[in-house]
């Protein structure tokens, strides 16, 4: 008796499945256009054979596929390319699937471009609509230069050689001009400084700026925030060139030669790295009292600005100030006493 009950259950279920196959065994909804086939599984399926192309082609003639569907899809044009006829040997399921939901686009897998004929694969515009963005309007139709068939967004390096006509030299037709002081002065001939392969490094031509009398270095460049440059003024060209920032042409020897015992750190003479002032008294050899006595013996009363007379550690290499005191006076003579006092050659001021 128990066995009979289970047999009846089994047979009853088969009847239910037979009359309600979509609800009982359908894996998911069919596409909207196939909804009328919900309970007629064998419209598409072959018993023990899956879905055959023949079943699809019974309704969808290969020569007709696309005439009423491709035109409605985004970015795809209806041209004369109804390529399905060339795919008769491929399984429809390679690209299409069913039971994925009512929306028909869900039922279409990723389009396999390798199935397209050679004639069409190299002519994207046979199937796709040309992009009408401002960038694409100026380009040739060689889509492969930037895009590939797997992903529209996977753009390789943009090939500027593709740009047609005079647009090639009109960078701002695609690029925006940077909104900074440098570029506002620079005009629109970007190629003067930039290349089409990289934005940086740029080869800036300062001649263009220097021709403008209102332009100074700090109009574009920021003064370095260190004490050395704090006291250096704004005439950058005294030390730096327009071709390279480093090395600069600053020459300490034009003030004082840093040789032998004077080859020490900046802070020894420039207290607190203040390069506007200096002192020679920080060395035991140059105590203020000693310096005073030695200079007064010579009748020199103004001895505070050492480098106005002494240019190096050679104490005989002296530029005497005839005015007798003003170390900053430009009327100076160089008096070389080396012939007379060769005995003192210790190199101190």
């Amino acid at each position, binding site marked *: 008796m128990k066995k009979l009950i289970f047999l009846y*259950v089994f047979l009853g279920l088969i009847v239910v499945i037979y009359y309600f196959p979509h609800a009982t065994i359908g894996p998911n909804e069919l596409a909207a256009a196939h909804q009328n086939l919900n309970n007629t599984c064998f419209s598409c399926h072959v018993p023990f054979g899956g879905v055959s192309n023949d079943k699809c082609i019974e309704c969808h003639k290969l020569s007709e596929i696309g005439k009423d569907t491709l035109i409605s899809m985004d970015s795809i044009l209806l041209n004369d390319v109804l390529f399905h006829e060339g795919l008769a040997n491929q399984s429809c399921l390679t690209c299409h699937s069913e039971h994925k939901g009512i929306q028909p686009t869900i039922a279409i897998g990723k389009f396999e471009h390798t199935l397209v004929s050679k004639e069409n694969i190299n002519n994207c515009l046979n199937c796709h609509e040309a992009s009408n963005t401002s960038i694409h309007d100026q380009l040739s139709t060689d889509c492969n230069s930037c895009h590939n068939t797997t992903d529209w967004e996977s753009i390789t390096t943009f090939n500027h050689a593709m740009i047609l006509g005079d647009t090639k030299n009109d960078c701002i037709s695609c690029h925006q001009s940077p909104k900074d002081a440098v570029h506002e002065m620079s005009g629109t001939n970007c190629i003067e400084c930039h290349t089409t392969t990289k934005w940086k490094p740029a080869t800036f031509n300062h001649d263009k700026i220097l021709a403008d009398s209102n332009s100074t270095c700090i109009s574009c460049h920021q003064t370095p925030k260190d004490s050395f440059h704090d006291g250096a003024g704004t005439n950058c060209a005294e030390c730096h060139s327009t071709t390279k920032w480093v090395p600069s042409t600053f020459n300490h020897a034009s003030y004082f030669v840093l040789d032998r015992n004077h080859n020490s750190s900046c802070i020894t003479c420039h207290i607190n790295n203040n390069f506007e002032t200096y002192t020679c008294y920080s060395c035991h050899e140059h105590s203020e009292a000693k310096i005073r006595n030695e200079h007064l013996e010579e009748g020199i009363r103004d001895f505070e600005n050492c480098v106005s007379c002494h240019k190096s550690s050679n104490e005989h290499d002296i530029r005497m100030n005839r005015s007798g005191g003003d170390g900053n006076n430009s009327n100076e003579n160089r008096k070389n006493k080396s012939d007379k006092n060769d005995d003192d050659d210790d190199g101190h001021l």
Partner: protein
Amino acid sequence: MKQPIFIKYVLPFIHWYVIMIFITIAIDYALHKYQIVVNNYYLGFAGTFILLLSFLYSLKKRKILKFGSPKKLLMLHEYLAWLGSVILLVHAGIHFNAILPWVAIVMLLIAVASGLIGKYLLKKSSAHLKEKKQFMLASGLDKTEADKKLFLDAITVDLMKKWRMFHIPITLLLVIFSALHIITIIIFSS
């Protein structure tokens, strides 16, 4: 000290059931997260095959199978049924589409719960029979013979009889729904 019934019988049942659900979710989550594509047919085959293996015990009980220890085959039945269920739950996923396979999964879950209940009912019955074993040994019966006799006795006590009246029909329904699911898949797939 006597353990409360909840700890001794209920907790182990919940423990095995929760682990089964947890492992299923973990596997399903990992497959989705790491985009591991496993042919779902293979999971179905594997789960079904393991479940069928677990039925060796049923064959032994009905004396169709001549070899094997009933105790060991019962243990095999418990563990293989649990493992096969995990695989079939992963195979099913959480897709509320066709009714038939979902009813089969519901039957599977009920059958596993029923099986776990039976496992602990058997444990309880065995405890009652311990005293009987002592008596048999005292009366001069061989230990192996006594074990065998007591094991068969334990599964035929009233409590177990009532349980089997539930477990076996549920299992049979599971077999029917699963068989129909497999048959329809074979008919409609290539």
